[in-house]
């Protein structure tokens, strides 16, 4: 019986980002509870445990309630563009991953080729991603 192969993007490769520190700056009037320098835990990305969900984000160390896991930078776009996109997609299209996979130096234990192919597989992680969707 012929068996179909899983898509290449669902291979068991794991991409790892080391624990790191980042600074959060709340806007005026926002709670200062999460301000200042925070430590992001070590995280890994590989195939999700949810069927058909693609890649999943996995914690590689114990995490406490309220701890910040990842940071995304929201992108500033025009109101017109926002309305156009909101008709088509969910609001979280307006953010992109700031710390986890933006810099090659954060990826550990992967060949340069793997890094390249990973970026190609996840174009949404690029800064100008939404414009290409």
């Amino acid at each position, binding site marked *: 019986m012929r068996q179909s192969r899983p898509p290449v993007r669902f291979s068991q490769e794991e991409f790892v980002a080391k624990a790191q520190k980042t600074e959060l700056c709340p806007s005026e009037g926002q709670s200062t509870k999460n301000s200042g320098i925070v430590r992001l835990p070590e995280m890994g990305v590989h195939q999700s445990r*949810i069927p058909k969900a693609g890649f999943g984000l996995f914690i590689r160390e*114990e*995490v406490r309630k309220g701890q910040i896991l*990842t*940071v995304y930078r929201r992108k500033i776009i025009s109101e017109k563009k926002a309305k156009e996109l909101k008709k088509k*997609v969910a609001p979280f299209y307006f953010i992109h991953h700031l710390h986890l996979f933006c810099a090659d130096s954060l990826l550990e234990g992967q060949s340069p080729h793997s890094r390249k192919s990973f970026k190609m597989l996840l174009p949404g992680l690029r800064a100008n991603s939404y414009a290409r969707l």
Partner: protein
Amino acid sequence: MQGYEYFAKIHELAGCANSSSKPNADFVDIGFDTVLQARFDLKKGTEVLTKYSFR
């Protein structure tokens, strides 16, 4: 294209956090950034799940 696969693709693009009815993390806006914050104490190896609302 509004089926399950469409939303699955969005999860992937959103930075590898998947949607679930039992989320263990939440998106919180802080200044220019949006952070993913743990809702509970989480063990090593746990997959990050967030409840997205598709509108």
